[in-house]
């Protein structure tokens, strides 16, 4: 039901796209390496980049260019705090144009297992710092459903569907902005320590006060447990 409402909202917002609303097209490749320290603690190293192919206005001009917008490197330590939940803290370095940003991350995740799918809730916050810009605070909530395409659980050698819906609100020097992400992905499990996911990563922001900016990214993520 939640996804249905979100889809309706997105169709509504996209339907309102005017010539002033802008879009970006590109790809978001990422690599996530996870290392278990013991039964409670684990470390995650994630590298992600954002490569833009095209940008323009809906119904207006567009330009094609190949531009590396940013590259992120994050190291996160996570501790299981219960049967289904984990608390994590991390540090991210973002390289964007000629600038470097530093970010502290805190997150709490709950993964619930149902008869034939898994559902995850992620609550997180981050604080980004940079020498030339005021610091930014973001609060995020993401809901994820992982649905097997064969059987009642996702087993090695099988495909699955993953649906992400995330809400991010950022505050910077008195200004705030809401971003909504909708990410339908297909995944394949080589084995429990090796998964590949790919699909659309749709992001919409700046739609409250002004013309919306819409990002359509081809998301490809590789999850390895070492």
């Amino acid at each position, binding site marked *: 039901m939640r996804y249905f409402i979100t889809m309706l909202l997105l169709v509504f917002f996209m339907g309102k796209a005017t010539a002033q609303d802008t879009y970006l097209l590109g790809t978001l490749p990422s690599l996530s390496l996870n290392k278990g320290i013991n039964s409670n603690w684990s470390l995650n190293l994630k590298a992600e980049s954002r490569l833009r192919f095209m940008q323009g206005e809906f119904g207006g001009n567009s330009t094609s260019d190949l531009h590396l917008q940013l590259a992120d490197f994050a190291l996160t330590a996570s501790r299981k705090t219960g049967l289904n939940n984990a608390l994590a803290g991390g540090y991210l370095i973002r390289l964007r144009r000629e600038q470097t940003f530093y970010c502290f991350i805190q997150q709490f995740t709950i993964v619930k297992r149902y008869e034939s799918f898994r559902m995850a809730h992620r609550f997180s916050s981050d604080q980004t710092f940079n020498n030339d810009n005021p610091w930014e605070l973001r609060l995020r909530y993401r809901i994820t459903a992982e649905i097997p395409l064969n059987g009642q659980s996702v087993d090695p050698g099988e495909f699955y569907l993953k649906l992400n819906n995330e809400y991010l609100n950022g505050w910077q020097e008195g200004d705030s902005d809401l971003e909504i992400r909708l990410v339908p992905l297909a995944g394949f499990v080589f084995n*429990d320590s090796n998964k590949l996911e790919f699909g659309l990563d749709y992001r919409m922001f700046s739609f409250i006060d002004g013309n919306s900016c819409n990002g359509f990214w081809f998301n490809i993520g590789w999850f390895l447990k070492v």
Partner: protein
Amino acid sequence: MKRLIIASMLLFCIFQIDANAQKKFEQESRLKPADVPKVARQFIDAVEMDSNWKWYFEENLQGNSVEAKTKHQGKRYSVEFDTSGKIQDVEVEKIWKEMDEQLRGSILFALDSLFNSHKLDKIQIHYVAETNVLLEILNKKADQTDSKIQYEIMVKGKKNGRPKLYELTFTESGELLESLEIIFRNTDNLEY
């Protein structure tokens, strides 16, 4: 004194089983009805339930099997066959309050002995009997006393540290037979 000896023996059995607690591995995939052994399909066709059955092929450490699952009047039913279609057992979801009081007492005694704290997650009753008896149990025409019964209970249990999920098997009288720790699949792709 006699009670003390019985309780001590029960505790000894519980801790022996707990010390040998194994980890559970299971992998299942969906089966098309056409790929199901004919005998198994015929059995399910004879079940008088107005519900849709789904078929699965299951691999575990004990071997492979074929399972039919459905949900009827709020309860989950599962019928397990071997790969030739010979019926193995029937599992029916059970509610804690529906169980005999003495049996609940024995199970709680075992749980209190194993864990510092625990919470019941799911209860299933296992019926093992001749094919016709199992069919009559499913069709509610036979009494469960006509079959061998076991209880499979999923428990969120805490010993030391954080809680874990266990699958415990009890006899008809509430004696603990087996304890398996459930290993969850990797959640990295849901957390990051």
